């Protein structure tokens, strides 16, 4: 039993090593930070619901390579995002940019909360205006 536990412990310790090329791409910590932020925000299109940072599919590796190249060529983040959107469309971004097309995505949560709030307010006001006897009668009926 103890041996199995020891084995399991070592297997746990080993598993992170099989991860993807998470090694440092840049010596400059500022560039490295930009690189990591970018790759965690780009969707792997072959393996949707993973970012290209988390995927070891070759397409993700190719896109990481392209982003490394663009960063070392001195491209800015918006330029790199443009590069990806021209080729793969807005869907490649986990954080869609605020444009006419994606505005509805950004506004929808607030609108939904607003509608819900208005509906709740109206229902509650209606209930509060009802006589208390009515509630008692309803409870009576429910029994």
């Amino acid at each position: 039993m103890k041996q199995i536990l020891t084995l399991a412990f070592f297997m746990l310790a080993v598993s992170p090593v099989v991860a993807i090329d998470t090694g440092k791409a840049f010596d400059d910590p500022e560039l490295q930070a930009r690189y990591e932020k970018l790759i965690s925000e780009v969707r792997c299109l072959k393996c949707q619901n993973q970012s290209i940072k988390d995927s070891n599919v070759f397409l993700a590796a190719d896109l990481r390579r392209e982003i490394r190249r663009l960063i070392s060529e001195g491209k800015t983040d918006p330029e790199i995002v443009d590069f990806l959107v021209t080729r793969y469309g807005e869907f490649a971004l986990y954080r869609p940019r605020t444009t006419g097309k994606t505005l509805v995505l950004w506004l929808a949560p607030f609108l939904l909360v607003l509608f819900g709030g208005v509906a709740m307010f109206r229902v509650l006001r209606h209930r509060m205006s009802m006589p208390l006897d009515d509630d008692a009668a309803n409870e009576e009926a429910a029994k």
Partner: protein
Amino acid sequence: MSRYLLPLVAVIGLILFLVVGLKRGDPRALPSPYIGKPAPEFELPKLKDPEQTVGSKDLSGQLALVNVWATWCVGCRAEHPFLLELEANDTIPIYGINWRDTRPEALRWIQQLGDPYVASGFDGSGRVGIDWGVYGAPETFLVSADGIVLHKHLGPLDRASWESDFLPLINGEGSMQ
């Protein structure tokens, strides 16, 4: 009664919205941002002759297919007979982008299964694939004579999708000229 009407309509509306979203077909089939726009420029060494190149210069002036293929790609094997048939009937020139492959294997494939391509470019590193927004072979682009991407087909090309998606566009192009 009328106080239930608004929530009921809202819920039915929501359900319809979600059903349409679910029935939208293959969620992995993403629209190409290149539709209606100029095809990306490219130039690649030819698969059969690395000394020569194939690229945008060869495409211009004619309606053509650009087919992204690889020997590791199962769907490419499935569509291969149909590509050969298009070639045999002189339907349309087909240019290949041999994506993320190795040259010996790609050459063996062409030798064993037949070569439907006017020429294939060899894109071992996948750079040109990225420029074309390729994310899973096979992908087939229909490019007009003036270099505009008219359609992108994801997955194996077959007669049904050829007739429903490609032919109307091809006929449309013909009548405009």
